[in-house]
């Protein structure tokens, strides 16, 4: 269990490190190819920060009002409050505010810029469908997100995506208006300047996509970490495993979720596309769609939990239920445009 947690933390750092290296690379290419030099990336960083961090500071209010969450008051939520309070004692964080969302789809999310300003929200569908152990597993997962400061981590990732998108955008414009010193190699022949220019052009078209893929990879890694940490709190993987199984079998989707807040929920609120695709889908197509998912497939999460070394009683994974709805879904989401 401890090994799983530290390996997940290591992978997170690796991904973030790779992301930073990538940003620096793009920044240097940008600096080389335009006359803005160092100032380009610096200004891009400031703009991206301003755009993203306002929403980070108010992340709890934004997420809660976007999903129309209401404070969980009244005797019927006593069990929920008791569970959340017990788990925050185990986690050593202050008890977050607890909210309820009127929706039959079972789901839950956690938000807030740090543990002192955190909130968790649960749908009425989840409360109806889960028993106490399963609910405890789900809330433990949410509290792990808060303890691990995942809003901060994902905000960092989104900021870096913003920087890259801005830089790529500017480079395209700069090229268009002919402001490049790397040159198209007209006057310099096919020298190294031209080669770097070509490399740079390819890079700037590919960069936003790579940045997004990195962001989604980080999101998936944090989900695994939250699952592992949840077991660290409850010492009872069966609770969360059982809850994930129930989520697997339930096909309803939360109404008020959007792509922007998708990574906050315990299960992706966006209907999956070719992750469990039609039999005719090419392996490549399926893989690419999976790379854009904010959450790892539930099968993989359940498997990881069963290997956590605390003796899950559910045994080897059952084969997943056949999807009952046609798998022809929407096309993959387009990369977000910023500025």
């Amino acid at each position, binding site marked *: 269990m401890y090994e799983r947690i530290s390996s997940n933390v290591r992978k997170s750092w690796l991904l973030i490190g790779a992301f930073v290296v990538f940003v620096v690379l793009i920044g240097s290419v940008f600096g080389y190819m335009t006359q803005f030099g160092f100032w380009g990336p610096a200004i891009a960083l400031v703009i991206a920060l301003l755009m993203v961090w306002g929403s980070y500071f108010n992340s709890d209010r934004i997420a809660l009002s976007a999903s129309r969450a209401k404070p969980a008051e009244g*005797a019927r939520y*006593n*069990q929920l*409050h*008791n*569970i959340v*309070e*017990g*788990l925050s*004692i*185990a*986690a*050593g964080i202050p008890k977050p505010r607890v909210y309820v969302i009127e929706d039959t789809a079972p789901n839950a999310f956690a938000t807030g810029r740090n543990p002192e300003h955190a909130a968790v929200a649960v749908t009425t569908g989840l409360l109806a469908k889960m028993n*106490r152990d399963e609910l405890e597993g789900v809330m433990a997962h949410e509290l792990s997100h808060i303890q691990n400061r995942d809003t901060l981590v994902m905000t960092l990732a989104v900021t870096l995506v913003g920087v890259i998108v801005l830089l790529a955008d500017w480079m395209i414009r700069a090229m268009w208006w002919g402001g490049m010193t790397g040159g198209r190699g007209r006057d310099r022949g096919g020298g190294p300047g031209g080669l770097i220019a070509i490399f740079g052009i390819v890079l700037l078209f590919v960069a936003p996509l790579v940045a997004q893929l990195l962001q989604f990879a980080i999101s998936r890694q944090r989900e695994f970490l939250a699952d592992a940490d949840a077991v660290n*709190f409850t*010492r009872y993987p069966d609770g969360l495993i059982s809850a994930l199984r129930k989520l697997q079998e339930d096909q309803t989707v939360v109404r008020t979720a959007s792509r922007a807040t998708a990574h906050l929920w315990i299960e992706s609120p966006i209907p999956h596309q070719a992750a469990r695709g039609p039999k005719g889908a090419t392996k490549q197509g399926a893989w690419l769609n999976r790379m854009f998912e904010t959450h790892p497939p539930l099968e993989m999460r359940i498997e990881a939990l069963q290997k956590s070394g605390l003796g899950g009683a559910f045994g080897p994974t059952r084969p997943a239920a056949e999807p009952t709805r046609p798998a022809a879904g929407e096309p993959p989401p387009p990369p977000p445009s910023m500025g």
Partner: protein
Amino acid sequence: MGAVGWIVLGVIVLLVIIVIVMYNRLVRLRNRIDAAWSQIDVQLKRRYDLIPNLVETVRGYASHERETFEQVTRARQQAVDARGIEDQAQAENFLTQTLRSLFAVAEAYPQLQANQNFLALQEELTGTEGRIAFSRQFYNEQVLAYDNSIEVFPTNVLAGAFGFKERAYFEAETASREPVKVDFSNPPPEAGGAGAAGPPAGPPAS
């Protein structure tokens, strides 16, 4: 002072800073253990506070089950009066057993099962049991972090020099691993009586 002198001075300053940082970290970890210990007590007290209400609610429907109520009340009083870790652990176990009897009795009364107050109390007790368990778990995690820190190299050198000692985990007493037989025929010695009482149990030192 030549260049070598400056370098030596720099190294000394660096070492002092390192020592300070390591020492402070150990102090913080140790304080967390004490805080976690008090937290356990807070949850235990909550449990004691819930019980009289629970007994009264059940008594309202099953007034002739006097023996069960008396057992619970006495077990609770014992737990409140317990001093010393072993006494407290044993008293806690008695109390848990009597509560189980109480709930077993309550199952025979369907009107009680429908009583909102009773259900709320039952949920509160379940929540409290959870909180007690979690606070003990949290306490053990702090002890683990602390013990790790004072045993790994190089901090163990510092720990030895400044007298940081290992702390013991909160362990289920061997006695409590066997099912406890609730027996009130021989009242246990008065724990809260003259002479035997002392300050509330502090966290185990080693």
